Each structure stands twice: as structure tokens, then as C-alpha cells.
């Protein structure tokens, strides 16, 4: 079908974008890479939006190291993250994720900020930022604020971004020298959304494990994390299966998704040289 938009305006910079959103009387809609939004508009899931095109705001794009943190502009595209040297070094989980997201032509335009704001529970980046304990930086009419990834994902397609706010950047600690970051998932075909997937991070402070495709939001698997910190893989798999609440749909049943999550955890554990029990 054909998209129906209420109107279109291109933002020159962040403050212009915020003004445009404020002007739109609640009908404003941020347009970044368009790889979810324009699809939704074409399907008429979203109509009459006053589109605020932020895609040309160059300040919101790019990766940098600031002190002991890695900062990623919200408009950095999936494809750029996939070939960025700082990402490969300091947040390799994100580079691994890129290989699983959609197809090349979509990765050429889709942005990390758009993927996080869209908050599809089956998407890779939301689960990644949860496992990496990232902070999301928001800018709104009342100024800026920061939200931890753990507090950001509220429900399916719903986040802590308030009306009139824009996600400007994501920041996270630099990976430690011995840190392990690994993403594993099962999808029916290359580029499809995963049936289930795991993001595993092990740093000095302990293991962080998040799950995608297994509930209404990406999930931080706290019970499994506690078991992994005790090197108890059997207990961790059982705990993980217990704390998931995955959907049953035409792709897979909830039981199968739970099963996959456990299998993936064992595979990660073996790959990093952990004892299997």
C-alpha cells in the first residue's frame, strides 16, 4: 500500500527538530532511517504523522571515545557500526549484532537510535544495550536526561522516550581487556528476525545476559546471571528457561523458544571454555 503522511519537515539541527516536534501538536513523528517507520506508513499502521526528518543532523551521527565510555550517535547507521574500528574494539557485541540485522540495503539506512526507539522485542540492538549496561541520552523541550537501558524498554514498541523527546546518543563502558561479548541467535533464514537470541557479556563485575525474541521487551535474565556468576551452567539454563515468557506464533511455540534459549546459552558457555555440567 501507499504511505499517508500528514506533512514533512527536515530538521537542520537538534534544537530545530525539538521545535518542530513541539509545533506538531502531538502528531509529530521522528523520521530517522525510515526502515521501520516507512514500512509501517506503507502498511497504514501509522497515518497522518507530521514527519520530523532528523536524518541530516550530522552531529547525531558517529562513534567516539569520551573518557572511559564509548558514545554512539543515535543516527549512526547499522552498516557504519558494522565497519567501525572503535565498535569492533570497545563494543564488539554491536558489530556481531549487525550481521544478524535484516539485509544489506536495510542496514545501509537503518540507525541504532531508530532501532532502540522502535523497541521491537525481537530486535538485536535493544538486547545488546541491555547486556552492555548502556545509558540512553535523551533531549527534550525541558533539557536533557539519561535513562539506563534497564529502565528504557517499557513494552512492545514502547520506551521511556516522552512526547517531544529525541534519543540523541547511547553510551556504555569500554570493554575491559578480558571482557567476553557474544551474541547468538536462531533465525529461520538469513536476515529474518530471530526466534530467540542471547547477548552475553562477562566483565570483572560479573556476567550480564539478555534475551531477544522472548517476551514483550528485551529481558535481562537476572536469575541465569546469578547462576553463571557461580559457574553453574546447568542451573543457569534452568533459571533462564524459567524466567522467559516468550510468545507462541506461526514461527515457533513458546516452548521451542525456551528450548532454543537454553541451547544457545550452553553453546556460548562451551565456546568461552566453561565447564559443562
Amino acid at each position, binding site marked *: *500500500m*501507499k*504511505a*499517508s*503522511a*500528514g*506533512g*514533512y*519537515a*527536515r530538521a537542520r539541527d537538534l534544537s530545530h527538530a525539538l521545535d*518542530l516536534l513541539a*509545533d*506538531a*501538536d502531538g*502528531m509529530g513523528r521522528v*523520521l530517522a532511517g*525510515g*526502515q521501520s517507520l*516507512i*514500512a509501517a*506508513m*506503507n*502498511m497504514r499502521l501509522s497515518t497522518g504523522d*507530521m*514527519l520530523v*526528518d532528523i*536524518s541530516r543532523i550530522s552531529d547525531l551521527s558517529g562513534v567516539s571515545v569520551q573518557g572511559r565510555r564509548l558514545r554512539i550517535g543515535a543516527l549512526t547507521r547499522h*552498516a557504519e557500526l558494522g565497519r567501525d574500528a572503535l565498535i569492533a574494539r570497545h563494543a564488539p557485541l554491536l558489530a556481531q549484532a549487525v550481521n544478524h540485522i*535484516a*539485509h*544489506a*540495503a*536495510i542496514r*545501509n*539506512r537503518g540507525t541504532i537510535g531508530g532501532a532502540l526507539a522502535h523497541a521491537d522485542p525481537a530486535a538485536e540492538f535493544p538486547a545488546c544495550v541491555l547486556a552492555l549496561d548502556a545509558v540512553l541520552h535523551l533531549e527534550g523541550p525541558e533539557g536533557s536526561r539519561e535513562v539506563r537501558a534497564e529502565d528504557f524498554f517499557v513494552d512492545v514498541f514502547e520506551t521511556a522516550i516522552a512526547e517531544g523527546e529525541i534519543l540523541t546518543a547511547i553510551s556504555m563502558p569500554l570493554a575491559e581487556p578480558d571482557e567476553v561479548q557474544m551474541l547468538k541467535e536462531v533465525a529461520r*533464514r*538469513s*536476515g529474518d528476525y530471530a526466534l530467540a537470541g542471547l547477548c552475553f557479556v562477562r566483565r570483572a563485575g560479573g556476567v550480564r545476559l539478555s534475551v531477544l525474541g522472548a517476551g514483550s521487551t528485551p529481558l535481562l535474565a537476572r536469575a541465569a546471571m546469578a547462576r553463571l556468576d557461580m559457574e553453574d551452567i546447568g542451573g543457569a539454563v534452568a533459571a533462564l528457561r524459567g524466567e522467559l515468557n516468550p510468545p507462541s506464533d506461526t514461527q515457533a511455540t513458546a516452548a521451542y523458544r525456551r528450548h532454543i534459549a537454553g541451547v544457545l546459552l550452553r553453546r556460548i558457555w562451551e565456546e568461552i571454555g566453561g565447564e559443562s555440567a
Partner: protein
Amino acid sequence: MSDVFRNKVDITLTVNGEEVEARVPAGRHLIDFLRLDLGLTGAHASCEHGVCGACTVKVDGDAVRGCLMLAAQADGAEVWTIEGMSDTGAIRDLQDAFVTRNALQCGFCTPGMLVACEELLTRDALPERDEIRDYLSGNYCRCTGYEAIVDAVEDVAKARRGLT
């Protein structure tokens, strides 16, 4: 409502090397603009939600979905479609290989397929067969079963590196 939001947007861009000026409805996606307004019907509008790849065209050097970009967003962009890429001869070898290898039957997916294959070949000079398959997972072909397309891409990759 503020009048800064436009229902119709004025754009200037280059398409296949020629400058184009137009006024487009805000919701018009790029592939409809190319096909219906400019008559460039090579790339196709099909699933219109980014899955099939039939609308793949080149924008500022990247293969993109023509159905997931608004024409309004192409202001200032450099767009290439299969028509222009054929006229310049830029992908003559790839097109010849598609014919030689029988890598198309109905041809519906071919314009998008060629744009995707060309991008793969510029990013990875000698892709493995499974890499080629992986890259083309976003371009549906319902005639060939892909085998012949993979053959064609592999042939061109080798030929361009002087390996045949």
C-alpha cells in the same frame, strides 16, 4: 498547525546523472517517484515493506530500498537506477553473466538483484558462495532457486580479478 510541515515537498536531485526538480507529496516513496513520476520502471514496487528487494536502487553510493525512503528525503541525493547503470555500461559484465548463466527467468527481481550484486562485488572482491547467498537473502527470486544467480556473481568476481 505549523506551516513548516509541507504536504508537498520541493526536491532537486540527480537521477542517472541528470538533474531533476520535482514537487512530491510528503508520503510518496522513492520507488513510486522513480516509476510513476519519472517513468523509470526498471526497479519494481512489490511488497512495499522492505522484504522482497525488488525496489532496490542506489542512493549516494548505497543500495537502498526504494519503498522505505521518501522521495522528499532524496533532496540533494545522487540516485542510480538499472536504466542508468545499463546505459553507462557500469555493470555490463554482470548483466552478461546473468544471461550466460540463465540467472533470470521472469525478470521481475532482476533490476534490484543486479544493484544488490553490484554492491556486494564492490565491497568484497571475491565473496564465497555462502556469502553471496547471505547477501542476496534480501532479494527474493521465485524462478531460479538462486543457484544460477550465485554462479553469475561468482563468475564476475573471478573475471574482475583476472582469475578466469
